[in-house]
């Protein structure tokens, strides 16, 4: 049996963890739970987490995925860390606007702008 593919890939840039999603659909509960656990461990490992979620690969997400992102935001904030979202495609951005979560998250158009926005 082959090894399961990790739900996210992580690269470090200075002290910032840049996350990309492996699957273009963040819909399936099991997949969302895998992502949540992986993000939680990234947050747990850092004293003050700086996390950039790059949505370049993402074409679909569900309200369960939004819940996972809010959980991530809450946990990062509880450790006085910083969370940025970037590269969100227009259809996905509309989901953030409908739910008004564009007010909750710091969303930047590109990865470069997001990297430059960390304090």
């Amino acid at each position, binding site marked *: 049996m082959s090894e399961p593919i990790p739900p996210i890939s992580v690269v470090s840039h200075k002290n910032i963890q840049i996350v990309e999603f492996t699957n273009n659909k963040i*819909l*399936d*509960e099991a997949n969302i739970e895998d992502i949540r656990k992986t993000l939680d461990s990234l947050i747990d490992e850092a004293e003050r987490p700086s996390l950039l979620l790059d949505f370049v690969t993402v074409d*679909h997400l*569900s*309200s*369960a995925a*939004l*819940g*996972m992102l*809010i*959980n991530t*935001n*809450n946990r990062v904030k509880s450790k006085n860390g910083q969370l940025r979202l970037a590269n969100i495609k227009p*259809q996905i951005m509309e*989901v953030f606007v*409908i*739910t*008004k*979560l564009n*007010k*909750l998250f710091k969303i930047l158009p590109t990865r470069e702008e997001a990297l430059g926005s960390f304090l």
Partner: protein
Amino acid sequence: MQPVKLKFDFPSDLAQTRAVQQQIMQAVHDHGYADDAIFGIKLSLEEALVNAVKHGNKLDPKKSVHVRAEVGAQQVEITIEDEGPGFDRSKVPDPTADENLTKCSGRGLLLMEAYMTEVEYSNKGRRLRLLKKKN
């Protein structure tokens, strides 16, 4: 192209919703709906099926979910019914209120109502009818 009628009755298991979604969305693709409509129907169907299995039937394998879909040239109509206790739409908190923005759940109905042309609740909230018109 003739309308496609689909019927599914399955136990409360999230894994079983995948095949239901795939077959309905295949029919929607085949009828030439625009990308934005496909995105909205797919998202709404995902939310409705998860609601029926998880919140309606509370993952009880003895209870079933009943789905009927009619995909035509001008509109897509999908009815999803669970065997749970039902719910009152008017009592569901507004997830966009400032005090609810950091809550991790409660956005499915809002998204369905935003993306579909009509959303109708009946049978005490157990039956949900989603309608998407092409134009």
